[in-house]
């Protein structure tokens, strides 16, 4: 084993070892600390890899240190860290807190695998690992909402995975290799089918219209704590999958990649934004906003096609940035949703947030910051993410940029409602905001704000 491989193995060990050990922990606090330590350790390893050995092959070509993937992975790990941090005092009613942390690490391990996979085998294994872990996460609270949601999620997830395998099968057939290498004898129609299957499979996870149906139910009903974790992880997994696939088939598909992905992107943005407009429940609103945000991310995926006029650097930068915005915002807002919804109870209305700013002014400001980031307000991360995403395709497909921006305009309306609920709604809600949760939400907001400075420091 050479150095990069050693470091990577260390990362796996950092995440894997606690998975085995944590279930034996009696004290949820210890488990909580251990999980955070594990993530930090893995993150450090990944950061070292990304900075010191970019592009290095791992395990004889099974894997590869890809910069964008590593960046995405780091975002995911950091976000998971914050999410985990926020859970400590909010797990009342969870039957098995240590188990929860173990499963979280398992999911993280899945993402870790996804991010380096260069072969279908590794990718599929990681995918399953992540999927199963995320189903379990949703199911863990074991109240009636979580269980129903988990079942829906699991069944849909398994079905979508089948499609993923099917599309991999076709790719294998086309390229004759388990490695992600560009198809040699590209049959155009088959490639389109592969892309469709992929979009269907990954789209389920990300909430792409019309494969989104489970998402509002699950995100909208389940306990917000696991959702705070998986909402970002699922997007990251999906993006990683599509990014890998693009390496193989985006080239031969050319304009069709862009057009097909853009079509899904547009449908998803419109669907998510318009449906979100009148949602009365906080979590459901966030859920539809998740769908809309998936649409924005797909703009970036569309930009992965190899047509002239697209600036690849901006695409990567935009995807990464948009993931930063999305991950922290969703983690933070779902955690906030927990403050107005006790474990096992029905999902809260938007108006339940009324009076938050008087009770917890900093928490309210953080929540508002995150919502503004989702809205795309400068100088927050969400602005830069959208800017670079939309900018990257504007030369090749100005219509796509225009539609995306129009959607951003529509979205302002319901994000404004969320802010209104916090600051201007009549009445006073009751809130349970334990310190760890507050810290996590504030950290999310701080990260979102701080990320606004990145463009000035780090060029695409």
């Amino acid at each position, binding site marked *: 084993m050479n150095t990069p491989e050693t470091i990577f193995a260390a990362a796996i060990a950092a995440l894997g070892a606690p998975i085995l050990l944590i279930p034996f922990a009696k004290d949820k606090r210890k488990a909580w600390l251990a999980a955070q330590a594990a993530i930090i350790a893995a993150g450090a390893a990944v950061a070292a890899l990304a900075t010191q050995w970019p592009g290095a092959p791992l395990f004889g070509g099974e894997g590869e240190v890809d910069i964008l993937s590593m960046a995405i992975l780091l975002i995911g790990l950091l976000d998971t860290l914050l999410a985990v941090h926020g859970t400590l005092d909010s797990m009342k009613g969870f039957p098995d807190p240590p188990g929860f942390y173990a499963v979280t690490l398992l999911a993280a391990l899945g993402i870790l695998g996804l991010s380096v996979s260069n072969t279908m085998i590794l990718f599929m294994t990681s995918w399953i690992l992540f999927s199963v872990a995320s189903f379990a996460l949703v199911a863990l609270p074991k109240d009636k909402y979580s269980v129903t949601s988990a079942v829906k999620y699991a069944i849909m997830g398994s079905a979508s995975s089948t499609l993923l395998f099917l599309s991999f099968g076709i790719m294998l057939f086309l390229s004759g290799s388990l490695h992600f290498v560009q198809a040699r004898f590209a049959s155009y129609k088959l490639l389109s089918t592969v892309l469709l299957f992929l979009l269907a499979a990954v789209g389920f996870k990300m909430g792409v219209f019309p494969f989104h149906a489970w998402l509002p139910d699950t995100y909208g009903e389940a306990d917000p704590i696991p959702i705070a974790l998986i909402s970002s992880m699922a997007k990251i997994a999906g993006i990683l999958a599509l990014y890998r696939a693009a390496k193989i088939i985006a080239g031969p598909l050319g304009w069709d990649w862009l057009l097909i992905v853009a079509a899904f992107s547009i449908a998803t943005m419109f669907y998510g934004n318009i449906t979100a407009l009148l949602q009365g429940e906080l979590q459901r609103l966030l859920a539809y906003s998740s769908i809309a945000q998936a649409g924005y991310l797909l703009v970036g995926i569309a930009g992965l096609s190899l047509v002239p006029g697209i*600036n690849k*650097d*901006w695409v990567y*930068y935009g995807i990464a940035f948009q993931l930063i915005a999305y991950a922290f915002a969703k983690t933070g807002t779902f955690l906030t949703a927990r403050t107005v919804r006790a474990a096992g109870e029905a999902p809260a209305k938007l108006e339940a947030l009324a*009076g938050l*700013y*008087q009770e917890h002014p900093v928490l309210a400001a953080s929540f508002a910051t995150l919502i*503004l980031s989702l809205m795309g*307000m*400068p*100088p927050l991360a969400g*602005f830069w993410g959208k*800017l*670079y995403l*939309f*900018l990257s395709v*504007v*030369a090749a497909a*100005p219509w796509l*940029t*225009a539609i995306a*921006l*129009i959607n*951003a*305009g529509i979205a*302002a*309306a319901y994000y*404004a*409602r969320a802010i*209104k609920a916090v*600051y*201007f709604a009549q009445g006073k809600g009751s809130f349970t905001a334990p310190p760890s949760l507050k810290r996590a939400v504030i950290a999310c907001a701080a990260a979102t704000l701080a990320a606004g400075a990145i*463009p*000035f420091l780090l*060029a*695409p």
Partner: protein
Amino acid sequence: MMNLPLLWASILVPLAAALATLAAKKASAKSLATLNAASLAASAVLILYAYLAYGMRGLAFDPIYFRVDGIGLFALTMDSMVFAASFSIAAVTSVIAVYSLPYMRHRFEELKEEGAEFPGWRSYYFLYTLFALSMIGTVMSTNTIEFYLFLELTLIPSFLLIAFYGYGDRVKIAILYLIWTHIGALLFLIGALAVGSAVGFDFISLNTGFLVGLGEKLGPLAATAAALLVIGLAVKMAVLGLHIWLPYAHAEAPTPISALLSPNLIGIGGVMMYRIVYVLFPHTFAGFSQALYVWALATMIYGGLMALSQTDFKRLLAYSSVSQMGYMLLGLASLSAFGIAGAMLHYMVHAFGKALLFAVAGILIANLHGLRDITKMGGLASKMPYTAALALLGFMHITGIPPTVGIWSEYLIIRGAVEKALATSPAWYMGATLALLAGIGLSTAYAFLTMKRVFYGPLRESLREAREAPASYWAPLIVLAALGITAFILASPLIDPLVSQIGAVVGGV
């Protein structure tokens, strides 16, 4: 290039004050007012110095700037146009910060009686100064994204200020305002992205100054991109047809904020229409100019008519702002160095004049039990001579009567409009003249009719008890009036650089 970062300082000094405000948990309202007003006054002085020392001669840059890959130069710049706008903003916001103290004290009491929940002084001044400094930033930008960034930064504090402290159905109106201006900003952004992806987002370069004609390289897309930019900015300006959010927002905002929103914020649309759209697309913009010219005249007349038909003082002033934006747009549409210089100068005129007028409306509201209905006023000049005099000066500004600087901007705008009309056709010349007669006639009519209805005539029975407001209300406003008169007398350092600097880009001087 300046030796010292004067321009960053002009933004960061208020920012420091704003942050200090947020942190100062125990500070009294008075000390907060002093702090914020002083910081904005310092900003005005810095701007004035930067202009006199550097900007008068041409584009001058702050020594601190950033380059962002793919997006370009984030620098701050100063020239005659920037001065006209940014100095107005700093001066007006500084004065109104002082005025806010008695006004908002009254407003807070009112809100308490309503039983509303609202954050106190610290939040008010924090948001206020944040709003002010981001407006200053907009006009100093050298890059469309930088401009957009500052512009959106103005949005949130102004939105919150309306939503927290406004009148009527304030939350609904604040959201209306948010969505409208957001849509305007997004239309602008679509255009900006189309330009930026092809030729970059800068409209001013450190080395060569204004990047004139850069956007034309877009080819057939240029017209669409320029149109989007124009429409986006026109929403901000509230030009006829896109104006409908303005009367709501400006009438129902807390009055000190109306005094910032109405002249300062909307005028930025006009200033940047030249600095961005004209500079990047001189030929395309020239192609639009006839349509814009007609649009401007229609806005002028329409705004005047609407103002005449209002009975709510603040709403009247809001429609008057629509009309004033017609003047500004007319100057821009003239494509003449004089006309455009007039539009820029009119920014200042409108800033001083309309701020005075909104402040006067606020004095009446605060001191006469929320009185806003003009039909219930009359004869107040005998009881409130200072307020009446300030109102008269405010109206003199916006109708262009000396000794206020208004006469210069009015002449410059008409000078430009006539030049354009004369070059077009005799029918155009005659039509434009008649439209100007109607437009300016209406402005005079609504301005002085309002003076008569509010301040002259026999004193209303219901106003027997009225007396002059405390000096804390009207004394700061004297500064604005004095600035307007000073600018009239010292017109040369304002107008000559404007004409020559714009003429260098536009030609024809």
